[in-house]
């Protein structure tokens, strides 16, 4: 665990109190606390989920980053590791799970499928990346990313958390936390925002 940055506020500490006091900024301690206890949602979609399990297991062990507490319930999770192909049939569930997660929440798209559709992109039941449904923080390429690549992505996520300023975070601002509208399973997957366009098209036909 990295605590180097924690006690360095960016200005000189007088020699006589050095080692006796800890000075830090709210941002630093706030982000340090959050980045060291990112609890992922126990949520596996496809092939990448197996590598995610391998990462959680003994050899790579992401509990070294404070991530061992995988929560089966979205209500207790901070991080959604989208590990695999997002299908249209699964899309409403994924959005619902995301909406149920409390802020602050992060999404990591693990692997090609979750990032951009992957090899199955052309398929009729595949969503071209989970970013078509929910906002994504870190993209990890690879099919599947090896456990070390996944940890690399998680470190990237920690870096992102480090860079956040508590005043600017969306969960302390009003009005930004509207739930994402849940897409519908119609003749195909229907996003709520497409409904007017589809209506228009079917009228013309």
């Amino acid at each position, binding site marked *: 665990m990295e605590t180097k940055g924690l006690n360095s506020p960016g200005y000189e500490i007088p020699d006589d109190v050095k080692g006796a006091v800890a000075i830090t900024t709210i941002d630093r301690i706030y982000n340090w606390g959050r980045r060291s206890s990112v609890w992922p949602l126990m949520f596996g979609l496809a092939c990448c989920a197996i590598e995610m399990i391998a990462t959680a297991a003994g050899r*790579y*062990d992401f509990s070294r980053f404070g991530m061992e507490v995988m929560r089966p319930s979205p209500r207790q999770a901070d991080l959604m590791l989208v590990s695999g192909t997002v299908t249209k049939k699964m899309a409403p569930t994924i959005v619902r799970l995301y909406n149920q997660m409390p802020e602050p929440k992060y999404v990591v798209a693990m692997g090609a499928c979750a990032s951009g559709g*992957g090899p*199955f992109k052309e398929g009729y039941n595949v969503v071209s990346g989970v970013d078509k449904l929910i906002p994504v923080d870190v993209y990890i*390429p690879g*099919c599947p990313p090896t456990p070390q*690549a996944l940890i690399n992505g998680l470190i990237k996520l920690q870096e992102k958390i480090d860079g956040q300023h508590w005043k600017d975070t969306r969960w302390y601002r009003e009005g930004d936390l509207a739930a994402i509208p849940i897409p519908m399973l119609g003749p195909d997957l229907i996003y709520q925002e497409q409904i007017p366009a589809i209506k228009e098209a079917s009228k013309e036909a």
Partner: protein
Amino acid sequence: MYGKGLLKGLGVTLKRFADTYLDDIKWMGKRYYTAEGLAHRSSKDAKGIFTVQYPEEKLPVPEEFRYVPFLVYDEGEDGEILNRCTACGICSKVCPPQCIWIERALDPKTQRPIQEPSQFIIDVDICMNCGLCAEFCPFDSIKMDHDYEIASYGRTVHHLDDLLKPASYYDEIRPVNSTREAAARKEAEEAKAAKKAAREAKAAARAAAKTD
């Protein structure tokens, strides 16, 4: 006796628990953060905790390991980039998810296609790391990279500039393959040269026969 099985199982757990500490003592502090320690922890004799302390220590990747593709270029004498790729399009044809887009360059004077790509795009977020492109490239140009630390905050699409890496890098990550391929290339060149020489000799002989 009820509970015997449980105790037996707990014995296994206890042994595993103790193994870590015993192994620690045996290795006298060299168990972690040393190459030998890491190799020991990945060998058949590994006992106890065998966690790889990524990112401080990294598992060495084997030569055949493949991640995303890249393009090899040879370095010219003054450091210029001599792209091995001839834009033949085989990799884009063989690619299972069709994630390679290639544009053949045009000769600026004649506007005729030449053997060089002007655009080479790999949508890494479609790529399935299968390695077929590298397997069937006849010019040893497209190869699979070992670099897996490429997570980013946006979607990953590699263009020509991102893809090009020097031949020295390729030799370093895949020494066996690159030596074999270089030998094969040399052999093909020699065969070609020999064929040419033979043809010339034949032509000369014929010419000599004519003059006789």
